[in-house]
Structures are given as structure tokens and as C-alpha cells.
């Protein structure tokens, strides 16, 4: 029975090796997710007494304008930043794919914003966007353009967040696309040249279809990222003016830790979780279909 002894040993080894991960995930992920449901059925200020209120928090969410504004903003922000990120990343990759002087340095500099913390990025742009002291408006007014009210206008406040996110994200998209571009064998292009596929035509009919899996990955990854945008908002706009840059994660944080509504924050968390889970399932489905096709 050597075979089954070996299998038992493998089973033991496998379970042993995943056990630290299982413990960590159970205690700090699965249990908290379950407890979030439980908290969401309570009214709880954080200190003071916790009170069971059933599904009242969910009923409140339905009529909570700020929640729906935050949901709308999150979707709007995602719908704007993800395509911009994909196009910008791909453009940068195409720009820096083939040889040019100091190509390595350019690539590195494009990537630098990716490694900078959201808080530091926020502070850097706080200084640039400052309506009264910021250099951007000083430059704009000095060349006769109207100065932009980056923090006072809802539209421009949202734009400022989008600009910072794009700045942070170009390098990541670029690297993902560079890796994919360099994985395209040259023979494919050479075959294309015979068919007269050059320039835009070549990109449209050869490069872009071959990049589809990469694009899919980048889109999924960016959507996850845009659902979690927090640091820059916290530093730059605090969700204002009004609710124009309030996103779901930020609203949940604010309700739980500033407004003394931890039960309500948990209910928002539950909704976020359901959305994220649905999204994950759809993504698995698409990936599976694609891999099988």
C-alpha cells in the first residue's frame, strides 16, 4: 500500500501547508464577513449600547440620498477612469514598446507614480489644485484662461480625483500591455505585412485582437481598484463638495467612524460585498468561457 501511504503523506503535507493561510483567512476574512451581516442588523454607535433593529438599516439605505449619490458616483467614476486607464496604458505601451534612446528610463518614470502612496499623491495634488494658492490656476490665469474651481465645483472636484487616479494608473497599464506586446511573436506581424497590414490597420486587425485577454485583465483589475478609491478622496476632497466625490467605500467609512453609525456602515459593507461577489462570479464565468473557447 505504498501508493496510498504516499497519498496520505501528500494530503497531510498539503493541509499543513495551507493551514496558516486558512487560519488567517478564516479569522480575518470569513468570520468578519459573517459578522458584518450580524452588525448590519444593529444600531451601534461604537461605544454605548448595541441595539437589535432587524433590517431597519437596509430600509434606511433605500431612502438614503447620500448612499445613492455615492453609488452613482462610484459607477460614474469607474465608467470614466477604467477606459481612460486602458487607453492611456496602451498608448504608453505602444509608445515605449520599440527601441528609442533612454527607453528604459522613460518606462521607469512612467511607472514612478504607481509606487507612491495615495496619501502622498493626494498631498502633492492638493498643492497643485489649491484654488487660491495652487500653481495650476496661477498658470491658467496668467495665460488668460479662467481659473478652475477644483474644490468648490462638484464637476471639477470629481475631475481632480480622476486626474490623480489616471496619473497613478498609467504606469501599471503600460507595464501590463508591454508584457503582452512583447509576447506577440514577430512572425505574426511579418505575416500581416504580406497581407498589407501596416500602421493603424495592423494595430486594428492584429495587435488589438491579440491583446484582448490582457485588456480584459486590466479592465477587471481597474474596476476592482476604482471600487476601492479612498486615500486620494480622503486627502483631496473629503467626498465634497456636497456628495459629488463621495464613493461607497468612503461613505461606509464616514458613517462607521465619523458619524457613529457602525451598524449602518456594516449594512453598506454587506451591499458592497454582494456587488463585489456578483462581479467576481461574472468575471469567473467570462474567463472560463474564454479559456474553453
Amino acid at each position, binding site marked *: 500500500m505504498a501508493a496510498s501511504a504516499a497519498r496520505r503523506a*501528500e*494530503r497531510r*503535507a*498539503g493541509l499543513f*501547508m*495551507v493551514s*496558516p493561510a*486558512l487560519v*488567517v*483567512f478564516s479569522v*480575518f476574512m*470569513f*468570520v*468578519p*464577513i459573517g*459578522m*458584518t451581516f450580524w452588525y448590519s442588523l444593529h444600531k451601534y454607535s461604537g461605544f454605548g449600547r448595541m441595539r437589535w433593529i432587524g433590517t431597519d438599516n437596509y430600509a434606511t439605505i433605500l431612502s438614503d440620498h447620500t448612499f445613492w449619490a455615492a453609488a452613482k458616483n462610484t459607477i460614474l467614476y469607474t465608467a470614466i477612469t477604467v477606459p481612460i486607464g486602458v487607453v492611456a496604458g496602451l498608448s*504608453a505601451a505602444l509608445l515605449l514598446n*520599440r*527601441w*528609442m534612446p533612454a*527607453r*528604459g528610463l*522613460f*518606462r*521607469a518614470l512612467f*511607472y514612478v*507614480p504607481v*509606487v*507612491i*502612496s*495615495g*496619501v*502622498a*499623491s493626494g*498631498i*502633492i495634488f*492638493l*498643492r497643485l489644485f489649491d484654488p487660491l494658492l495652487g*500653481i495650476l490656476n496661477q498658470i491658467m490665469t496668467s495665460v488668460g484662461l479662467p481659473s478652475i474651481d477644483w474644490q468648490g465645483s462638484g464637476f471639477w472636484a470629481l475631475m481632480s480625483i480622476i486626474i490623480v487616479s489616471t496619473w497613478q494608473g498609467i504606469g501599471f497599464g503600460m*507595464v*501590463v500591455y*508591454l*508584457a*503582452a506586446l*512583447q*509576447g*506577440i511573436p*514577430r512572425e505574426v506581424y511579418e505575416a500581416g505585412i504580406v497581407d498589407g497590414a501596416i500602421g493603424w490597420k495592423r494595430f486594428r486587425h492584429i495587435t488589438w485582437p491579440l491583446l484582448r*485577454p490582457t485588456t480584459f*485583465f486590466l479592465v477587471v*483589475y481597474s474596476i476592482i481598484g476604482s471600487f*476601492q478609491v*479612498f*486615500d486620494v478622496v480622503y486627502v483631496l476632497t473629503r467626498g465634497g463638495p456636497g456628495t459629488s466625490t463621495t464613493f461607497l467605500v468612503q461613505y461606509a*467609512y464616514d458613517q462607521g*467612524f465619523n458619524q457613529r453609525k457602525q451598524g449602518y456602515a456594516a449594512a453598506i*459593507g454587506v451591499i*458592497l460585498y454582494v456587488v463585489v461577489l456578483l462581479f*467576481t462570479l461574472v468575471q469567473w464565468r467570462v474567463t472560463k468561457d474564454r479559456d474553453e473557447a
Partner: protein
Amino acid sequence: MTTPRDSSTSLADLAGEPTAVAVAAPAEGEARDSRRVTGIRLVIAIVSVVVLMFPMYWMIRTSLAPTSELSDLPVALWPKNWLWHNYTDPWHQFPFARWLKNSVVIAVVSVVLTLAINLMAGYAFAKLRFPMRNALFLLIISTLMVPIQVIMVPQFQMVIDLHLLNSNWGVIIPRLAEAFGLFMARQFFLAMPDELIEAAKLDGAGHFRTFWSVVLPLSKPLIASLVIFTFMWRWNEFVWPLIVLDDPNAYTLPVGLQFLISQFSTNFGPLLAMSFLSILPMLVVFAFFQKYFVEGVARTGLK
């Protein structure tokens, strides 16, 4: 996946081959554009870099100048008076050194623990058969996209109950449940040929010996990517430390920075000086290890 790389360390060289993993043709055989096309691309690249780097430049510029020098146009591109005390004063006024130390401790310990957990689990999920393997893996991966805000309320209570508030461990431990690294590790091990492992087994090595002396030595690119990414994420992390750290002495650099925003308000010089100092370690790490950043991205992105 494991194309040999040269060991040169200069910035440009390293950056020049960021995607060695996936390069189909060696660099010297690379097709080049015509001089005109290259020239146009070069101009676009320079303009883009100038735009992208302007915020960084302006951060450094502001950090070296008194506010008055910057509030009226035209602003000189180079400081008239170098105000180094923006870089030194906050160290005395605020526990900046403590924040730096906390950030270093948290990032380093997180890296070590995350590495241990993810390498073992990633290997087991990829190469060993045990009950519920796929179900457990899917369960863990399903948390890949769960934002911290979903679980912050119970997790905060948990940290209180464990008496980990305001401690480095309170920041480190809950964040070990990080599915991305585990996913990355499993993808890497899946691509590793089974023959290697079988050969080790035939030599009589047990699973742990095989893992330790055969698999790990071949996993240096993975380890490097995991180290870099975990370091970056923990170094830059904001929400969770913001929740568990309320004592200024326990702050990490990002939490300390947001504390400084309200302290300095419109006095941007020292604020940006401290911001620059906070990202400097990350920039140095990036300068030295950038190819692993790129490989890590490529590895998860392509598979």
C-alpha cells in the same frame, strides 16, 4: 517563464528589459522604427514624462521654498533660497522618526509573514492533492476584490478584543489575509514543471524537503515580486492603519502625513518635504528592484 536575465544593475539597463519574462526575441534582434518615427515617439515621450513628472518636481520645489515665494507668479523654476529646515524642523515637532520606524517594522514583518503563508499555500494549492483543494482555493480567491470597508467594523472590534489597538501587530495581522499574493504564488507554481518535483521525490525527499530545497530555490522571481508588492502595499496602506492607530506615536507614515495636513494647513513647504521623505524609501526600492515589479505585474496579468 524563466528566461535568464543579465545581472547588470544600472537603472537604464534594468528598466530596458522590464519584460524579459515575456520577450520573444532577444533585444539585439529587435526591429527598429525609422529615424523619423523614432524621433516623433521620442518627442511625445519627453512631453509625457514632463507632464507626468511635473507634480513630483513641484513637490520638491515647494518643499524647498517659503510659501510666499510660490504664491505670486512668475515662480522661478529653481528655488531662490534653499529652505532645508522644512526637511529638518518637523522631525523635532512631530514623532516623524517613530512613524518611519513603525512603517518599516510593519512593512518588513508583513513581507516575511505574507511570504511564508503565500508560498506554502500557493504551492500546496498548485501541486499537492488534498481534500477540498479547489473549493478552499475558490473561497479564498473570492475575497480578492473585497474592500476593507466591508469588514472594517467587526475587524476593528476584533483588534480591540485582542488588545492590538495602536500596535504594529494590529496593522499587520488582519492584513495577512491577502488573496492577491496567494493567487500570484499559485499561478507561478502551476507553471513549474511537475518533472522537477517528481525527480526530487525519486531521490527520496519528502514534500517539505522538496519544497524547501528544490522548489524555493527556483522561485526567486516569484519571491522577489511578492516581496516588492507586499512591501509597496503595506508601506502605502492607509485605511486600515487609519482605523486602528489613534495614538500619534503609533502612526505609520501615511497616517502621519494626513495628521500633518491639518497641522500645517496652508504651510505646504514642510508638508511636502515630509511627503517626499515618506515616498523616498519606496522610490529607492523601486529603483533597485524595478524589474521585479514589472515581472510581478506581467506574471499575474498574462495568466
